[in-house]
C-alpha cells in the first residue's frame, strides 16, 4: 500500500480516482470472472488485490463500512457501489453497466497522462500509453551542467550514460586488441596506433544525435506530444512547463508519471563546480582530457577511469573507502587490482579537499589537494582534468512535489508501492527516482511499459524488480545476477550457503600470454533450497553477453544440479559455469594452468 496513507483514505481514494475499481483477491475465481468481463468490454479498470498486501483484513473492514460487503470481488463504477460478481454480471446483462462507465461526470483534463522526464522510463511509459489511444504528453528538459554541457531527447542512458560509455569502453578495448593482434601474427605496429579523442567523440556524438532524432520521430508517429520544457507541479493535476526561452504554459492531466532521473553530485569543496567535470561533460568533451583524476569508486567512476586509461591517458582514481558499494566485494577488489595492473593509479582512503586552477585551457591544469581518511595528512598533485563521480542524486527537489502532496525521502527518492504509485493516487514514479529499485535502464523501461499497461490496458502485471542482471564495463568486465556474497550471507546465513568458484583463463588470453588467474566466476547457492543459485558472478570478457541468458535461467529457478546438467559450448568462457566443482568452503585450488 502507498506509504503514509491510512487505510480508510486509501480505499476511498481508489474508489474516487478510478472509473472502474475492482477490489479482488488473486486466488478468487469470481474476481477473475469480473476482471475478464471488464477486459472483454475493453474498458480500463483498476484492480486492488487485497490478498497481496499485509493489511488485508483492515482493507476488507473498510470496504464493509463503505458498502456493507466484506467479500471480494467488490466493484465500483464512477464511485458508485455495484456489488460482487453476480451483481456486476447482472448490471451488464441488463445493459446498465456500460452506460454507467461511459457517463463519466469526471473533470476533463488536457491530457490523460503527462510524463515528466523523457528518459528511459518516461519514453517507454508514454509510448505504451499512447498505444492505448490515450492523450499523452512527455516533458523533457536538460538543465546544462555547470560547464554548460547539454544534450537532446532520451535521458541519461542515451546521452550521458550507457550508450557513450559502452562505445568509449569499446574504443579502449579495440586499442588493446590491436596490441593483442601482434601476438596472433598481425604485422601491426602497436606503438604507432593512436586514438584521436576528437574523432572518437565525434563518432559517438553522431550516433547519439541519430538516437535523439529517432526518439522524436517515434513520439510523433505514436502521437505523443513532446514538450521540450521543464515541468513543475502546481497541484496534483496541474503542472507548469517552462521552455528554454522562459515561455511558460500550464498543463492539466488526469495522471502523471515522474521520471526525472538523477544528476551527478558535487562535493562541497572549493573548486568543485568551477573546475571539475562529471560524466555529464566527459562524453562530449571537445578536447582530450589529458592527465586525469577520477574522484569516486562508483561503477561510473571505475568505468570512466578504465576507458580513459585504456585509450592511453595517465589516470588516477581517488577512493574514499570501498570499490563498487553494493556489489560483491571480493570481485570489486579484483576489478581494482586488475585496473592497477593495467597502469591505473589508485589513491585509496583519500578524500578531496580543494581544487585550484593553475592554468586555463583545453585542457588546463588543476592542483588537487587530497586528505588521507586514516592519517589526515594532505597530498597535492597536478592534473589536466578532474572528473567527479561520487554519486548521483534524484532531481526531484525542484519539481514542486510539495504542491502536489507527493512524499519524497530526504535524498530525493520517491517511495512507491508495488504498483509504482506514490502516496498521491494519480501520480506515479518509475526509473531512478523510485526508492529502493535498481537504477538501470532496462528496469526503468520495463516499469514504464508495465505501468502504462496497468493504467490504460487493464493489465495487472507488476514489474518484478528481483533478479535483475547487470554489468560493470570496467576494462575487465564484470556481470552478475542475484545476490552478492555479502547479501546472500546476510539473507540466508553463511552456513546455509555453498559457494562454487573458479579462476578462468579465456582462450583468447592464452596467445597474448595474459595472466591465467585474473578472470573469475562464482555461483552462490542456497543449501536449504536444493542448492538454488541465488547469485551468479562473472569477471571476464563479454560479461554482459554471458550473464543475460543465465539471468533467464535464474528466473526459472536454476539450481546447481541443473547448471551441472547443462552442456557447455566449447571453447567459451561461459561454459565454465557448467563445470564448477570447487567450493569455497573446501579451500580447494581454483588456479588455472591451461587446457
Amino acid at each position, binding site marked *: 500500500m502507498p506509504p503514509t496513507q491510512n487505510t480508510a483514505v486509501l480505499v476511498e481514494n481508489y474508489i474516487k480516482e478510478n472509473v472502474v475499481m475492482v477490489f479482488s483477491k488473486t486466488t478468487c475465481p469470481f474476481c477473475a470472472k469480473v476482471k475478464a468481463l471488464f477486459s472483454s468490454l475493453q474498458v480500463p479498470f483498476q484492480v486492488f488485490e487485497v490478498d497481496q498486501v499485509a493489511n488485508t483484513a483492515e482493507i476488507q473492514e473498510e470496504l464493509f463500512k463503505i458498502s456493507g460487503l466484506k467479500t471480494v470481488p467488490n466493484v465500483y463504477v464512477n464511485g458508485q457501489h455495484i456489488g460482487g460478481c453476480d451483481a456486476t454480471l447482472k448490471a451488464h446483462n441488463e445493459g446498465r453497466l456500460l452506460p454507467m462507465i461511459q457517463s463519466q461526470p469526471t473533470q476533463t483534463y488536457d491530457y490523460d497522462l503527462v510524463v515528466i522526464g523523457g528518459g528511459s522510463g518516461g519514453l517507454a511509459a508514454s509510448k505504451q500509453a499512447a498505444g492505448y489511444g490515450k492523450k499523452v504528453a512527455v516533458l523533457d528538459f536538460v538543465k546544462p551542467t555547470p560547464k554548460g554541457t547539454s544534450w537532446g531527447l532520451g535521458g541519461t542512458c542515451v546521452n550521458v550514460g550507457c550508450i557513450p560509455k559502452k562505445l568509449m569502453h569499446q574504443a579502449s578495448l579495440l586499442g588493446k586488441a590491436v596490441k593483442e593482434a601482434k601476438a596472433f601474427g598481425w604485422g601491426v605496429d602497436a606503438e604507432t596506433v593512436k586514438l584521436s579523442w576528437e574523432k572518437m567523440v565525434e563518432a559517438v556524438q*553522431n550516433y547519439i544525435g541519430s538516437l535523439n532524432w529517432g526518439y522524436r*520521430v517515434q513520439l510523433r*508517429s505514436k502521437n505523443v506530444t513532446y514538450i*521540450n520544457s521543464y515541468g513543475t507541479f502546481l497541484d496534483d493535476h496541474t503542472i507548469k512547463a517552462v521552455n528554454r526561452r522562459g515561455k511558460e504554459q500550464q498543463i492539466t492531466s488526469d495522471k502523471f508519471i515522474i521520471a526525472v532521473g538523477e544528476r551527478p553530485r558535487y562535493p562541497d569543496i572549493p573548486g568543485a563546480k568551477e573546475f571539475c567535470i562529471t560524466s555529464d561533460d566527459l562524453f562530449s568533451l571537445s578536447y582530450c582530457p589529458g592527465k586525469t583524476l577520477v574522484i569516486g569508486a562508483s561503477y561510473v567512476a571505475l568505468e570512466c577511469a578504465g576507458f580513459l586509461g585504456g585509450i592511453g591517458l595517465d589516470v588516477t582514481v581517488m577512493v574514499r573507502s570501498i570499490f563498487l558499494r553494493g556489489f560483491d566485494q571480493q570481485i570489486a577488489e579484483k576489478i581494482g587490482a586488475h585496473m592497477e595492473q593495467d597502469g591505473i593509479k589508485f589513491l585509496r582512503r583519500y578524500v578531496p579537499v580543494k581544487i585550484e586552477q593553475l592554468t586555463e585551457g583545453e585542457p588546463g591544469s588543476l592542483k588537487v589537494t587530497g586528505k588521507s581518511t586514516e592519517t589526515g595528512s594532505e597530498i597535492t598533485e597536478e592534473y589536466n582534468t578532474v572528473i567527479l563521480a561520487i554519486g548521483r542524486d534524484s532531481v526531484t527537489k525542484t519539481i514542486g512535489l510539495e504542491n502536489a502532496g507527493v512524499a519524497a525521502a530526504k535524498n530525493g527518492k520517491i517511495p512507491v508501492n508495488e504498483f509504482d504509485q506514490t502516496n498521491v493516487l494519480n501520480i506515479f514514479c518509475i526509473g531512478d527516482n523510485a526508492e529502493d529499485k535498481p537504477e538501470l535502464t532496462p528496469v526503468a523501461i520495463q516499469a514504464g511499459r508495465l505501468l502504462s499497461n496497468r493504467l490504460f490496458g487493464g493489465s495487472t502485471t507488476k514489474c518484478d524488480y528481483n533478479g535483475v542482471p547487470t554489468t560493470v564495463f570496467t576494462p575487465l568486465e564484470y556481470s552478475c545476477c542475484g545476490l552478492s556474497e555479502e547479501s546472500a550471507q546476510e539473507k540466508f546465513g553463511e552456513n546455509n550457503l555453498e559457494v562454487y568458484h573458479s579462476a578462468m583463463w579465456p582462450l583468447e588470453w592464452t596467445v597474448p600470454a595474459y595472466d591465467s588467474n585474473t578472470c573469475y566466476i562464482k555461483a552462490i547457492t542456497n543449501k536449504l533450497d536444493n542448492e538454488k543459485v541465488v547469485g551468479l558472478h562473472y569477471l571476464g570478457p563479454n560479461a554482459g553477453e554471458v550473464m543475460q541468458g543465465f539471468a533467464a535461467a535464474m528466473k526459472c529457478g536454476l539450481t546447481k544440479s541443473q547448471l551441472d546438467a547443462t552442456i557447455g559450448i566449447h571453447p567459451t568462457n561461459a561454459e565454465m559455469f557448467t563445470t564448477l566443482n570447487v567450493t569455497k568452503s573446501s579451500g580447494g585450488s581454483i588456479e588455472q594452468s591451461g587446457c
Partner: protein
Amino acid sequence: MVQEFKVQGFDEFLSKVTELDKQNKVILCMFCGDKDASGNSWCPDCVVKEPVVRKALGDVPNAENVAFVYCSVGGREYWKDRSNQFRTDKNLKLTGVPTLMIWGRPNEKLVEDQIKADVISILFDQD
C-alpha cells in the same frame, strides 16, 4: 506553393541545392530510386511514399520560402554500392531510399517507414 525541382544523380543534386541555398531557401529533399521510361521504379517504397510527401507539401509552413527537390539517386546497382556518393557525402550519409530531409540537417532524416503523413511536419519543428 512550394516550388519543386527534379534532379537526377549526385552532381545535379549538389548544384541545385547550392543554388537554392544561396537564395536562403529551406530545402526539403526527397531521395528516390530511378524510374524507367514508362515511369516504373525499382524501389516500391518510393512509389508508395511519393504521394504521401506531395500531399504534405500542401501543409508546409512558410511555403513560399521552401523548395522541394525530388532527387532520383540512380539505378539499383548504383544505389546498392555502399560507396556511392549519396551514402558517403558527409552532408547526406543516406542509409535508405526513400529518404526525406531538410538540406543542412544530416542527422534529421525520415527514412522509409518513418515517412508518414502525420510525421513529416517534424522536419520543420524549431526545437
